[in-house]
């Protein structure tokens, strides 16, 4: 009796559960047929940025909340208003003005045409989700975003996995939005098969009229892995198929096989008739992944593709997501003649270690002339030590935003006496290190000390520059907090060839001391002068520039109340090469004046920003 009952119950329960499943299957099949979701399998979660983790540059001061990258966190402050607001995230540069300067680095060969990124920002959200949509609220000069990536790592987890993947959610070309008003940028993103709460935005502002400003990022996603059939199938892009993750790994980890060539020479047909140099010239136009793929085709091409002459310039910045110690190790054999190396943005989150980097430098770095290490957070003092010992002929060194380097690590740079270009933007370099660098690196042409907050006395640094570096062509002292007329006078007296000088937000310079007039008189070759937010710049200063600096191309006098339109007319008449004039927030210069000036001097881009 009991067994009969239990069997009965068992059969009933099974039937009920089976019919339930069948019901779901029916439901989902109906859903597929109708092309819509019948039941929401997971609730969509909307999140704002919890924390800004990393970025390449920003306009604001390091401990401020005005125009800094940290404003991207949380709810929007400004949207839907448009304008130049302090509560937004602003990058340091815009347009092509910085690329036009002589202090700009030469572009690297073999940069893939699809790599447009100039700046980036990495943001973390609270919960990992499978993203369904991502919106960026741009409140000023939208159109800069060129790539959106998602990472498989949860930055808040205690046990980070060894294997970190970055997946491109969306990529596009730099644009300029037709309508300069605030907008919600929401491109259609790719479906990925891992949950993410770490998003990276890459930006290119070269087409934009003025600084682009971002207010917030909204990530929409589902917690449970979506069943792909219930979503619209994404368009399969041909380039997606050829740019598989696994392929790239294999290529960059390719080993040069040293096999005995002589025994199995099958003949290479017409390739044997072509001169060696011609094949080298042809393959010099291939991007790095294509070069690695080509090396796999046959022994002759492998020999060509592994020829060190192809690796005189090497830029690994476009491949920052995939570069690892192993990749560097495999490239080592080909890079014996390397002269220019770009490792900017690479190696973060453990991808490159100091051993991997140092062994590469020791093996290949003797001939290095240019080394770009922007935003390389893996760098330590021993890396700088290795560079200073190995790369004795180094002429260009870029360490911008490598903020893990301790202040005293920079003293090693003093050993690189051939240095011509040194970028220390947003690093922790301190007084004694920079003074010792300036003592020994007397060939310096281009020096960037923007936002170097640990240097206490900029007057001494400026005086030292004037005394020791007479060949100086460009100097970036953006936000240098305590430079006064004394240091500036020493600088312009000693560095007579100075062409570019950025004194933006240096509030301790007072025009009443005559320092700007003195500057104008002493630097007739001046091409770029930024006096951003120096509220003391007055008509006399602008007139002195008009009287002396006929080569002037870029001038920024944002935020002064003391400059009238008369002196601007004089300046524009006297400086025929002027291309950029920023008179934003100059209270005596209204929109009408700007219009008049622009119509008379059409070659000059006159910038007048606005806020509400």
């Amino acid at each position, binding site marked *: 009796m009991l067994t009969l009952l239990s069997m009965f119950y068992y059969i009933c329960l099974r039937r009920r559960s089976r019919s339930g499943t069948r019901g779901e299957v029916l439901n989902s099949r109906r859903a597929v047929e109708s092309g819509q979701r019948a039941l929401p399998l997971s609730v969509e979660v909307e999140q704002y940025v919890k924390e800004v983790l990393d970025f390449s540059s920003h306009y*604001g*001061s390091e401990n*401020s*909340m*005005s*125009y800094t990258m940290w404003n991207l966190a*949380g709810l929007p*402050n400004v949207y839907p208003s448009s304008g*130049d607001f*302090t*509560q937004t995230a602003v990058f340091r540069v815009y347009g092509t003005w910085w690329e036009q300067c002589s202090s700009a680095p030469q572009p690297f060969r073999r940069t893939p045409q699809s790599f447009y990124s100039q700046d980036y920002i990495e943001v973390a959200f609270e919960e990992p989700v499978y993203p369904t949509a991502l919106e960026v609220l741009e409140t000023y000069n939208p159109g800069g975003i060129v790539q959106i990536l998602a990472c498989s790592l949860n930055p808040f987890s205690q046990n980070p996995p060894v294997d970190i993947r970055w997946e491109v959610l969306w990529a596009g070309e730099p644009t300029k939005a037709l309508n300069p008003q605030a907008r919600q940028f929401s491109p259609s993103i790719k479906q990925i098969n891992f949950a993410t709460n770490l998003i990276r935005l890459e930006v290119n502002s070269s087409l934009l009229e003025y600084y682009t400003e971002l207010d917030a990022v909204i990530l929409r996603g589902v917690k449970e892995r979506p069943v792909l059939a219930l979503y619209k199938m994404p368009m399969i892009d041909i380039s997606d198929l050829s740019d598989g993750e696994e392929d790239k790994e294999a290529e960059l980890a390719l080993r040069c096989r040293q096999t005995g060539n002589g025994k199995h020479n099958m003949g290479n047909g017409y390739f044997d008739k072509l001169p060696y140099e011609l094949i080298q010239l042809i393959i010099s136009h291939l991007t790095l992944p294509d070069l690695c793929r080509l090396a796999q085709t046959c022994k002759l091409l492998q020999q060509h593709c592994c020829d060190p002459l192809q690796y005189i310039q090497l830029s690994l910045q476009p491949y920052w997501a995939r570069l690892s110690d192993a990749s560097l190790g495999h490239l080592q054999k080909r890079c014996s003649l390397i002269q220019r190396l770009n490792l900017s943005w690479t190696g973060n989150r453990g991808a490159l270690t100091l051993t991997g980097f140092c062994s590469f430098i020791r093996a290949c770095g003797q001939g290095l002339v240019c080394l770009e290490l922007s935003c390389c957070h893996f760098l330590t003092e021993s890396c700088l030590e290795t560079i200073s010992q190995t790369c004795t002929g180094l002429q260009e060194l870029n360490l911008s935003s490598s903020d893990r380097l301790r202040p005293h690590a920079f003293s090693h740079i003093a050993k690189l006496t051939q240095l011509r270009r040194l970028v220390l933007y947003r690093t922790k370099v301190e007084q004694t290190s920079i003074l010792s660098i300036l003592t020994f690196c007397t060939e310096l042409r281009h020096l960037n000390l923007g936002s170097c907050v640990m240097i206490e006395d900029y007057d001494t640094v400026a005086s030292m520059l004037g005394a020791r570096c007479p060949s100086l062509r460009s100097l970036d002292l953006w936000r240098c907090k305590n430079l006064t007329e004394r240091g500036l006078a020493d600088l312009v007296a000693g560095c007579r060839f100075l062409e570019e000088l950025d004194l933006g937000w240096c*509030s301790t310079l*007072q*025009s*009443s001391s005559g320092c700007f007039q003195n500057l104008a008189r002493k630097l007739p070759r001046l091409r770029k002068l930024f006096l951003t*937010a120096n*509220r*003391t710049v007055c008509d006399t200063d602008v007139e002195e520039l008009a009287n002396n600096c006929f080569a002037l191309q870029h001038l920024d006098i*944002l*935020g*002064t*109340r*003391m400059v009238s339109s008369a002196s601007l007319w004089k300046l524009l008449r006297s400086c025929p090469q002027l291309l950029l004039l920023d008179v*934003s*927030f100059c*209270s005596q210069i209204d929109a009408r004046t700007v219009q008049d000036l622009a119509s008379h001097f059409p070659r000059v881009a006159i910038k007048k*920003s606005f*806020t509400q």
Partner: protein
Amino acid sequence: MISVLSYGRLVARAVLGGLSQTDSRDYSLVTASCGFGKDFRKGILKKGMCYGDDACFIARHRSADVLGVADGVGGWRDYGVDPSQFSATLMKTCERLVKEGRFVPSNPVGILTMGYYELLQNKVPLLGSSTACIVVLDRQRHQLHTANLGDSGFLVVRGGEVVHRSDEQQHYFNTPFQLSIAPPGAEGAVLSDRPEAADSSSFDVQLGDIILTATDGLFDNMPDYMILQELKKLKNTNYESIQQTARSIAEQAHELAYDPNYMSPFAQFACDNGLNVRGGKPDDITVLLSIVAEYTD
């Protein structure tokens, strides 16, 4: 005997339990604001929380409730500068600092210092000056931390009596301490005090304490006993009653300001200093009235 002991134990446990329960709950400030601009612009919220040249803010963060008032110095109008811009921007900046958690509850002077520093980071060339008063309630520790620069200030009323008040900071008559940004070249002629010059104080608060934060438009027209009279009418801790009381205080001060025969505290002080004047002092009035209550979400 045993019953007495057990009864005593029960009572002790109840009392201690009750006390510890109050101690562990967070406090919060229920705040209402009211004010009048000097030129009869009755409580128009220009950019949110501005009354004439005065400005104020009410903000909360995880660990604290913060209030602030700032009195823009009207003399700038003679030089073509809108005095309300400085005070309004200062208060909005301090509000954002609080909302983003860039402050320490026990250091309200730090909020002023950072707020003033951020004003200098604005692309817009701000000019002007104002007093400032910041009041921070540390929710968990039940402590009030204050910073006052100038002649705005606060009162803490407990059981119908003033138990704490701020001191006025004046350089000389009618010239309070003030934060300012001067046009270049005029730095010598314009009074500019550093944020670190603010007076600060910290003390414990209890449930039911009333905190009145206001600019000198209130204190110069209404003596303490009149303010206390109005506050006695406050029976509830809900927002509507507080709003009503704040409004009545501000309205009364506004009326008294234009009474030519009334011996206002301002007139009294002037007489004490040898100036024979009578009547109220027309000025912008800003009143923030808060009650310490238990924290509810």
